[in-house]
C-alpha cells in the first residue's frame, strides 16, 4: 500500500544537523574564529555589509562563518537581522570630502592636489599564487608609511577641480531635506519612476555581479557613454546624528566606505552647453569594483534626465532596479525546487488532453 510521504519535521531537523556538521568540516582542523574572518577576509566582510545594508563587521563575519562562506547567504542573514532592528533616526549625510583617506586616485589627471594615494590595492600585483601563504609562513608585514602623511582635506576632483570651469554637470541640491526626505527602499515599496536617491540606494545594495555586468555592458556599446574615473576614495568617514531634542550633532563613530565619481561625455542639448556628466557609486567597506560599476549604471539610468533614448538594459530603470537585489533573486530562482506537484499535475492533465485531441485529429501522425 502507498504510504503518504511525510516531508517531516525529523527530515528537516536532520538536514540541519548535517549542515552544521558540514559547516564545521574536519574537527581535527581548528575552528575558524569570526575575528579571523573580520581581520583576514575583510573584502568578503565589505561585500556582505554593503549588500546586507548593515555596517557591522562583527555581524558580517559571523554571517560569513554561519553561511559556510556563501556570501549571498551571508548577505541574507544580515538582511533578515537588520530588518528587525528598531529605527532611532536617520544620520546626517556623511561628508566624503573630509574622509580619512586610505586610498584616493584619479584617472583624469596625472597629478593633482592631494596626490595619487594608492593605498591597499590589488592593482599592479602579479596574480601569482603565493605558496608561502599555504604554509602559513608569512612574516608579520608592516608597510612603510610616508612621513608626509595624507592631506585629509584634499579637494574633490569633480566638485572642486573640474567645476572651476563649469565643465561638469551641476548636481541639484535639495534645499531642505525635512521637506523632501531621502527615500528608503527598506521602508517604502519600490515604485516607478524612481528618483535618483532610490536608484542609488538600490544599486548600492544590489548584487555586485549584476551591477558589474550591467556596467560592463555599457562599456561594450549597450548605452555606450564613455566614462573616466574622476576620483575613487576609500577611507573612513564620521557618522553623526542630530537628535531633535538637541541643536548640535552627536558623533556616533566611523565607517569605511568606497566612493567613485565618474566623468562621462555629453554633447549638450538646446538648453545645456556641452559639458561632462556624472555617475556616482558608493559602497560600505572597500569595494572598488562595485563602486565603479555602480557609477556606470547610475549614469546609464540618468537617460531620461539627459534626454537620451532608452535603448539598452542598463538604461532601463524597471529592468535594473527590479532585478538587482540578490536576496530577492536567489529566493525566487531557488524556489522552483519547492514542491510544485499541484501545478505540475494540472499541466500533466492538459498535455495529456492536448495529445489525445491531436491523436484523434491526426491518427496517422500519432501512430508514426
Amino acid at each position: 500500500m502507498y504510504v503518504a510521504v511525510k516531508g517531516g519535521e525529523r527530515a528537516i531537523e536532520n538536514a540541519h544537523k548535517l549542515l552544521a556538521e558540514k559547516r564545521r568540516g574536519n574537527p581535527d582542523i581548528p575552528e575558524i574564529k569570526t575575528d579571523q574572518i573580520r581581520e583576514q577576509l575583510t573584502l568578503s566582510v565589505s561585500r556582505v555589509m554593503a549588500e546586507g545594508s548593515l555596517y557591522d563587521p562583527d555581524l558580517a563575519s559571523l554571517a560569513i562563518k554561519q553561511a559556510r562562506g556563501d556570501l549571498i547567504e551571508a548577505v541574507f542573514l544580515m538582511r533578515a537581522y537588520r530588518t528587525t532592528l528598531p529605527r532611532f533616526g536617520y544620520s546626517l549625510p556623511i561628508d566624503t570630502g573630509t574622509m580619512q583617506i586610505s586610498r584616493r586616485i584619479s584617472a583624469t589627471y596625472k597629478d593633482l592636489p592631494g596626490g595619487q594615494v594608492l593605498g591597499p590595492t590589488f592593482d599592479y600585483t602579479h596574480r601569482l599564487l603565493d605558496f608561502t601563504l599555504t604554509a602559513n609562513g608569512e612574516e608579520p608585514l608592516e608597510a612603510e608609511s610616508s612621513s608626509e602623511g595624507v592631506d585629509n582635506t584634499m579637494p574633490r576632483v569633480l566638485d572642486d577641480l573640474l567645476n572651476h570651469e563649469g565643465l561638469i554637470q551641476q548636481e541639484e541640491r535639495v534645499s531642505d531635506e525635512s521637506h523632501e526626505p531621502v527615500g528608503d527602499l527598506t521602508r517604502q515599496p519600490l515604485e516607478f519612476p524612481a528618483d535618483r536617491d532610490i536608484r542609488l540606494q538600490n544599486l548600492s545594495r544590489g548584487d555586485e555581479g549584476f551591477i558589474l555586468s550591467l556596467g560592463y555592458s555599457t562599456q561594450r556599446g549597450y548605452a555606450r557613454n564613455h566614462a573616466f574615473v574622476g576620483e575613487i576614495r576609500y577611507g573612513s568617514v564620521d557618522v553623526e546624528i542630530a537628535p531633535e531634542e538637541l541643536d548640535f550633532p552627536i558623533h556616533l563613530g566611523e565607517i569605511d566606505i568606497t566612493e567613485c565619481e565618474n566623468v562621462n561625455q555629453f554633447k549638450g542639448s538646446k538648453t545645456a552647453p556641452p559639458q561632462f556628466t556624472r555617475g556616482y557609486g558608493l559602497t560600505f567597506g572597500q569595494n572598488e569594483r562595485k563602486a565603479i560599476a555602480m557609477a556606470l549604471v547610475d549614469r546609464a539610468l540618468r537617460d531620461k534626465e539627459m534626454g537620451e533614448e532608452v535603448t539598452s538594459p542598463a538604461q532601463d530603470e524597471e529592468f535594473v532596479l527590479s532585478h538587482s537585489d540578490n536576496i530577492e533573486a536567489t529566493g525566487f530562482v531557488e524556489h522552483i525546487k519547492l514542491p510544485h506537484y499541484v501545478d505540475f499535475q494540472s499541466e500533466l492533465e492538459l498535455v495529456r488532453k492536448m495529445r489525445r485531441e491531436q491523436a484523434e485529429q491526426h491518427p496517422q501522425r500519432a501512430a508514426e
Partner: protein
Amino acid sequence: MNYQQTEIPDYNFAYLDEQTKRMIRRALLKAVAIPGYQVPFAGREMPMPYGWGTGGVQVTAAVIGPEDTLKVIDQGSDDTTNAVSIRKFFARTAGVETTEKTADADIIQTRHRIPEHPLREDQILVYQVPIPEPLRFLEPRETETRKMHALEEYGLMHVKLYEDIARHGHIATTYAYPALINDRYMMDPSPIPKFDNPKMDMMPALQLFGAGREKRIYALPPYTKVKSLDFEDHPFVIQSWEDVCGLCGAKDTFLDEVILDDQGNRMFVCSDSDHCNERQAKGHRGPQNRDDSLTEEVAL
C-alpha cells in the same frame, strides 16, 4: 498569556515589530476596501527566502493573535517541508497553537491550494503569492500594467485566452487562472489549480494575498464575486479525473498523481491530506487502501 512572550526572546510576538504590523494592516484594510486591487506595501526581509512564502508569512504575522490556531499547507498538504517550516516558525515566534485540521484553524496559510473543506466566516485564508500581477506575462512592465488596471483595460488577456482557443480548441491555462473580482479588477488567484477557482467565489471566509518579493497585498472580503474569465461559447470548466483517490475513494477532490514504479504504474491521492485523512477516519476507502473491510467506496 503574556502578549510579548515568545520562545525567541529577542524578537517581538510573531517576529515582526508592531510598527511593521501596523503598516501591513493599513495595506490590508485598503486591500479589503478595493477587492482585487494590488496594494504596494513595504515588505520586509524575512528569515526565510523570497519566493518561499514571505508575503503570506508577513500577512499572517500581521493578523495573528496569541489565541489563534494556525494551519499551514503547501500543495494542499500539511506535511510538505515548506509548510512544516512555516508552521514551526509561528509556533516558535508567536507560540500559537497549530493544527492540521481545516475546521479547527482560525488562520490557514496556503501555497497553491484551497482546502476541500468549505471555510467559515470566522476563518481567514492567507495565500502566498509569487507573481501578483495577472498581466505580467503579457506585459512585463509594472508602469504599464498599473495603467491597464486603472483603465480596466483587460483586452490583452481576453486576446490571449482567445488565441488559446483558436490554437488548442480550449483555454490552456490550468493554474493561476485569472479572475475578475467584483466586476472590476482582474486578479491572479496565486498558482492554485483552476479546480479551486470556484471556491473563491462568494467564500464566507476572508481571503488575503501576500506577495513578499513583489511587495504587494490584495484581498477578497467575505462573499465577494469572483468570476473566472471565459467566453460565452467556451465557459470556464475545472479539471476532472477519471480516477478516484486511492486512499479515501473521493471523486470530487483535486488528485495528485503518485508514481509507484518505473513500469508506468501510478495511483491518485487527494492533494488535501487533511480532507483525505478525515474521510478515511470516517471509514471511506479507495481502491489502493483495502486491507481492512470497512465501507467500500466505488472503485472505477
